[in-house]
């Protein structure tokens, strides 16, 4: 089932060379990306160079490391040395970093084959990838729909078979939601499991890098490679244990909690698919526990206040002085900074910077930011209490399936509301995974979310895998696009 293992077997048994494999992907990107807009930068030279090295290793009879030789993509907010990194913002156009993000450094040392940088909502702010300065990435299942966001390009690349897997980042659902929209597995590890060093910050206390893959085992293999302690990130802790070797553990007797609040106002097709999934878990011997979790009604305001507050500070550095975009003409330094930012940032980013600045301002701080922090504490506590009597929580990933194009240009609050199911995992720092659980009437994938206790990432992956083994014929639909191996 694991694509990664399958491909590595092809490589190791010399049925396919890594250069041939990489060429297939690069050719497919050439063909598909015009429509999907999944990649904003293709790193073909880099990819082929790595592929050659991998082939040398194979011909030398060396065993491959877990992700070696596998063509993959990186979200464009993961810093890559000597490769332009823009966060899909005009303000960073032309910015070429001088160092590698720790996650990329780790994969690079394994000879992961980087195909390119993927499209995203500008600075990861959005739910459709449409705030990207390059335009949105489309959903390979139906290009009249978005791939989701903010890691829309990553999901589009994997779903369109123009990458085996992609790394995205998840601040309020940005890995899980596009995975859900594109029929993929998206995993946001526990906050602190994966290093944030070199992930361009949106909201530092919420951001976490995570894989988007076509199956659970791949996600676990990737997780095991990237969830390591990094001394450069003070909030980093690494994983407690490896996960891929525990996927086959039985989940009999596992207690799965369901908070009713997550199901309020969700789409009927989503509801049906999830109910069917619950049944599968029951059949697998899990115990389902229903309860109320009233704190959920606070998660959205808390999320938007904290995320915007941190973003307003994190994005202050883009002033046109040292790197990135600078306005053409200006009167003085203040004018330069002001014009650069006005021209360089898109509307959604500016909106969130202003909102964040507002909630931190003297006179409003107590009413917004401080209150949000207090509520965050009570939400964290509520989830901790849940996990005293549950092993996992099950919820929809998104109340709907993939939005139609331009849906998010309507009422922004309506868009923000679709984050309701995903943001709690970020607020509480919990591991959460989205796995497909069916399709809606239009044939678009529905995602289901499993949320675990802090640093119990393995349990989440284990339960997802057990479900997947039962349902794989019914929940995945292989796209006709891209590379077929």
């Amino acid at each position, binding site marked *: 089932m694991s694509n990664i293992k399958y491909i590595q077997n092809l490589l190791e048994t010399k049925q396919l060379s890594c250069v041939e494999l990489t060429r297939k992907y690069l050719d497919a990107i050439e063909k598909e990306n015009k429509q999907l807009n999944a990649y904003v930068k293709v790193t073909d030279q880099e990819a082929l160079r790595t592929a050659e090295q991998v082939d040398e290793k194979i011909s030398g009879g060396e065993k491959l490391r877990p992700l070696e030789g596998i063509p993959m993509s990186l979200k464009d907010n993961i810093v890559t040395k000597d490769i332009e990194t823009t966060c899909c913002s005009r303000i960073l156009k032309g910015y070429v*970093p001088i*160092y590698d993000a720790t996650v990329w450094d780790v994969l690079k040392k394994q000879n992961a084959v980087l195909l390119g940088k993927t499209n995203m909502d500008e600075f990861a702010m959005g739910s459709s990838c449409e705030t990207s300065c390059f335009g949105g990435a489309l959903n390979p299942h139906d290009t009249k729909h978005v791939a989701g966001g903010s890691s829309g390009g990553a999901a589009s690349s994997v779903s369109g078979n123009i990458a085996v897997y992609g790394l995205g980042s998840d601040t309020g659902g940005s890995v899980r939601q596009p995975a859900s929209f594109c029929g993929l597995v998206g995993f946001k590890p526990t906050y602190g499991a994966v290093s944030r*060093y070199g992930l361009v910050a949106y*909201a530092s206390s919420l951001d976490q890098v995570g894989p988007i893959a076509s199956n659970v085992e791949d996600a676990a293999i990737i997780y095991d490679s990237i969830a390591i302690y990094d001394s450069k990130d003070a*909030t980093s802790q690494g994983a407690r244990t490896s996960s891929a070797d525990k996927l086959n553990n039985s989940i009999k007797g596992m207690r799965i909690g369901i908070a009713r609040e997550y199901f309020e106002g969700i789409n009927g097709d989503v509801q049906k698919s999830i109910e069917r999934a619950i049944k599968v878990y029951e059949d697998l011997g899990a115990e389902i526990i229903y309860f109320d979790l009233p704190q959920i009604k606070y998660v959205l305001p808390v999320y938007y206040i904290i995320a915007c507050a941190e973003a*307003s*500070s994190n994005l*202050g550095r883009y002033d046109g002085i040292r790197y990135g975009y600078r306005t053409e003409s200006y009167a003085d330094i203040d004018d330069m*900074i002001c014009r650069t930012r006005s021209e360089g940032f898109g509307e959604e980013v500016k909106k969130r910077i202003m909102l964040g600045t507002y909630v931190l301002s*003297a006179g409003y701080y107590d009413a917004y930011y401080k209150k949000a922090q207090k509520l965050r504490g009570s939400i964290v506590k509520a989830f901790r209490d849940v996990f005293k009597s549950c092993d996992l929580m099950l919820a929809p990933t998104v109340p709907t399936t993939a939005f139609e194009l331009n849906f998010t240009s309507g009422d922004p609050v309506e868009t923000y509301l679709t984050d309701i199911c995903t943001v709690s995992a970020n607020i509480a720092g919990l591991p959460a995974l989205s796995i497909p659980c069916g399709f809606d009437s239009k044939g678009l994938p529905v995602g289901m979310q499993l949320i675990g206790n802090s640093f119990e990432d393995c349990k989440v992956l284990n339960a997802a895998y057990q479900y997947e083994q039962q349902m794989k014929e019914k929940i995945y639909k292989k796209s006709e696009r891209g590379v077929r191996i």
Partner: protein
Amino acid sequence: MTWELVGGLETHIELSTKTKIFCQCTTQFGGEPNTHCCPVCVGLPGTLPKLNRAVVEYAVKAGLATNCKISNISKMDRKNYVYPDLPKAYQISQYDKPLCRHGFITLSSGKNINIERIHIEEDAGKLIHERGNTFIDYNRGGVPLIEIVSEPDIRSIDEAVEYIDKLRLIMKYIGVSDVKMQEGSLRCDVNISVRKKGDTALGTRTEIKNMNSINFIAKAMEYEFNRQIDILESGGEIEQETRRYNSDLNITESMRGKEDATDYRYFREPDLVTIAISEDEINKYKSELPQLPDEKLKTFIDEFELPEADAGLLVKYKKVAEYFEEAAKDIKNKKLVANFILGQIFRRLDTEDEKEECRISIPPGYLNELVMLMEKKKINSSMARTALEQILDSGKPVMEVISEKDMGGIDEDTLRKICEKAVEANENAVTQYLSGKEKALAAIIGFIMKETRGKADAVLATEIVKQLINNN
């Protein structure tokens, strides 16, 4: 009507840790612009700070040395403001949970200036205006600072100056900063207001920013004190504002008013974790503190029986004080040692820097040996002075210089014989002395010195001569 000055100081001191507060770059002063930098301290996208624990240690030591309470739990916050020398557009600082609180410094008058807090933060880069352009040097960016905030307890310029002097000296003693004001490693903001003597309420204050010379601080305070009095006496009101000192004109001028005050939008730095400091750690730092200047002064005066002025001069330079202690080891009359250092030796140290660095060409053991010889009456004081000059010039060991130049003392028997000879040869002087002219002895001693080529111990010789005359 008499007016009273009310002042409080915010003192920024650069810590002398080897590396910066959040990265591994050197903290060395100067260097080619932007060569002491890395992605972290220039705030490149995606980088994260990592707290240098040595900064916490230094700051805690600064707190302990100024009688502060150390917080077991502390945290870092972001102070957001836009300025080109601040590459992240926020300074990582501490807002409501500083490392140290509630300390004080005792002035020589016995009055305490209370310290409200000491917190750690990162320094910003530096703007260099040249040829109509502005350049930015980020070498200083990320150098660790402590900010020491006093209560408004200062009532005169002299108190302010003494407070800063004392702070500097303490920081130097505990080795957390070289506090070189000319290099900007100590900078002060002064808050100042005036009120009628006897009033208890505080007047509206102004803040004079960023001064790095004690002289300027004194002048700025004086100007500002008078400016505020003039305004109040002519019926005006003081505006709460930030001012700067213009040293060319010797005035303070307005920078920005209260309504333009920056809203720093402080919030907890999410990239860093809570700073926990255990009691064990605090005790360890406490035990590592050297004797502080005030205690040393007390030791020098009370135990070493030095005059207050001499003790003060020695303590003023930490390394000199230590040199003195070394040189005065096992010496009974420690003042002899102090005299040599403050006299002959200091004459050779031209600048404050040389004193600060204690650039004395001979090891303290030499001075110790020399004074030891004096105490054992092996050499007299004028010979010792001559010997010291030659030791300082040549750097040669004491005994070598003394035997080379035949400066060894004269034993008592030989001296007694010479004294007898002198009394016989100076009958006149003896008669005069016996008739009450004490001074007449000088001629006899002069004779002895001539005979011994100055090697005789004058005090001992005088004693012997008196005995000889009186016993006759």
